[in-house]
């Protein structure tokens, strides 16, 4: 086709293409609707660029293999949906605890349990933050368009390498299966972050000694550093410790490396907040309907603003509070029973009324439904 720069792509396809552009060369997965196209495309495209695809026996093994691939020095990813995301939690926690970069795509479908496999939902929002045991920090990004799915996947890999943390691309069936025009950039225009390698001589490298940002450097297995990785709480040398001070440092660092760098990690779209009485706070596929509703409201002369977190974890308490404090209400439409609304309520500190607009019928929220909620405020 002549107009090469704009290509029709499905969300799942954009994710895979974004991953390839970010340098992903190892994919381990297990099929599950509605994420399966990502695996299928990985199987087709990876060997063409010299990468490798493996279909593992289950999601637990997929997550494990991704961690292994990453330690072997290859940017690695997996994709799944609800039930598979639940299964990955233990090894996802391992990756977090071991500061191991990787990207996990969750194309959300409706739960709980097997749920409605082909229906859109946003029900894994809190699970993305708290699904594994113990305390940790994590990054989760949420695209609202196919094009954004492409770019956020690249960003997911970049953040993952920069902060040595698994990054969740928490998308949904709406985005995953929608087709839109994506303007594919020239690879040279992309910013692709690479893993920071140690500079210390081999004998002296401390594999978990943080830099100023709290992030250690990471050699590849095979580079000759002969380091140790464990799921036990470990000191900077990588070996298990129960020294209370070192334990405290180790555990807090996992959260602090995210929260301390939140301004670098966090992204949100804000529209017409300044003069607004009401803010519609929405993310992912639902944000499309919300943005339309906001336009419709503005057309009706209502002063409504729009806040769309693109990074949903970490949650930027301060920025959100600034955006909503003193407003008449903040309306939070989402395809779940108010999971994002909990967070907004938490940071609102009573400075505004938090109105969840929830939908769990297996269908998406419509602009009309959101507009109705807007109009109901007073």
């Amino acid at each position, binding site marked *: 086709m002549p107009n090469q720069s704009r290509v029709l792509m499905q969300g799942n396809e954009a994710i895979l293409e974004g991953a390839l552009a970010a340098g992903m060369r190892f994919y381990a997965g297990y099929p599950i609707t509605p994420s399966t196209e990502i695996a299928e495309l990985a199987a087709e495209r990876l060997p063409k660029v010299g990468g*490798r695809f493996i279909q*593992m026996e289950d999601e637990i093994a*997929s997550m494990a293999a991704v961690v292994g691939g990453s330690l072997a020095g290859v940017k690695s990813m997996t994709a799944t949906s609800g039930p598979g995301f639940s299964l990955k939690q233990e090894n996802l926690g391992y990756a977090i605890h071991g500061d191991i970069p990787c990207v996990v795509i969750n194309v959300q479908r409706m739960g709980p349990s097997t749920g409605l496999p082909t229906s859109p939902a946003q029900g894994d929002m809190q699970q993305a933050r708290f699904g594994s045991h113990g305390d940790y920090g994590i990054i989760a990004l949420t695209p609202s368009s196919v094009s954004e799915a492409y770019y956020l996947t690249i960003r997911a890999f970049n953040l993952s390498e920069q902060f040595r943390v698994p990054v969740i691309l928490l998308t949904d069936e709406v985005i995953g299966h929608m087709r839109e025009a994506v303007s594919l950039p020239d690879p040279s225009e992309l910013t692709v972050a690479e893993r920071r390698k140690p500079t210390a001589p081999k004998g002296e490298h401390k594999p978990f000694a943080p830099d100023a940002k709290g992030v250690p450097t990471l050699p590849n297995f095979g580079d000759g550093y002969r380091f140790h990785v464990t*799921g036990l709480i470990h000191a900077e040398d990588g070996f298990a410790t129960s020294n209370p001070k070192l334990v405290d440092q180790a555990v807090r660092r996992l959260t602090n490396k995210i929260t301390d760098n939140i301004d670098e990690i966090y992204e949100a779209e804000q529209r017409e907040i300044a003069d607004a009485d009401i803010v519609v706070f929405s993310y992912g596929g639902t944000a499309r309907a919300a943005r339309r509703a906001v336009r419709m409201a503005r057309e009706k002369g209502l002063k409504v603003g729009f806040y769309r977190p693109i990074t949903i974890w970490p949650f930027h308490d301060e920025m959100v509070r600034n955006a909503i404090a003193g407003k008449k209400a903040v309306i939070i439409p989402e395809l779940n029973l108010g999971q994002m609304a909990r967070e907004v309520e938490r940071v609102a500190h009573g400075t505004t009324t938090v109105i969840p607009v929830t939908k769990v019928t297996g269908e998406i929220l419509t602009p009309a439904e959101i507009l109705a909620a807007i109009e109901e405020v007073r």
Partner: protein
Amino acid sequence: MAIAGKIPTRKYLRQDRLPHIWCPGCGHGIVMQALVRAIHNVGLSQDKTVIVSGIGCSSRASGYMDFDTIHTTHGRALAFATGIKMANPELNVIVMTGDGDASAIGGNHLIHAARRNIGITCICLNNNIYGMTSGQFSPTTPECALATTAPYGVIDPSFDLCKLVQAAGASYVARGTAMQARMLEKYITNALKNDGFSFIEAIDQCPTYFGRKNKLGDAYAMMKRQQETSVSVSKAAAMTPAELEGKQVVGELWNSPRPEYAKSYDQVIAKAQQGGGR
């Protein structure tokens, strides 16, 4: 002066991590040494070899070995190892696992690694018990034995891990005991040379839990007993199932090379790059 044939095992250990946490008389140290000796025999580079383990007393081995090492989650060592091998097939990948780790929670990864014939050498340190968690029975605990979760004796039939792994597709399968450490070294050496999935069941002793609970005496008594109940492959061939009851067959049980998985994937790459597929 080195004794002829003596292997400089210390070179392969992280000596600053020793003494290890294993109990007095625990067989895991003996098997670990056999592995180290085999690695030396084959001449694997310390910089290009990765030791992967799960969770369990046995799985603590990785921390003591001077290679790139990863102590993963319970039962998943082979899945992590598969990722390592697939992402960089140049690495030598060795998995150290326990009977619980490999065959209880990790059973699925074991049979699938065997099926794929991926280039991993898997050494299962089988002490017939969950040592780390203080003595619950494992899928290899013999029937009627006592364990903390089998106070009336185990009723679960036990796995013949070698048979299982062979049926699943492994290309090299051997069994030895700690008391036969030199044979074990030989099997592991051959396993490391096999380009595919190799499985070695190393029967060893947990005097602290399995031994004490079942009144089997000290570590050496347990080792002796394991040796006494062992039958070589050749002898076993002439024995009836009844005669083999309560015995384990030791030796190289299966050796049938076939294409290694990561190498097969090279052909996928070649095909894809020649524009094949779909």
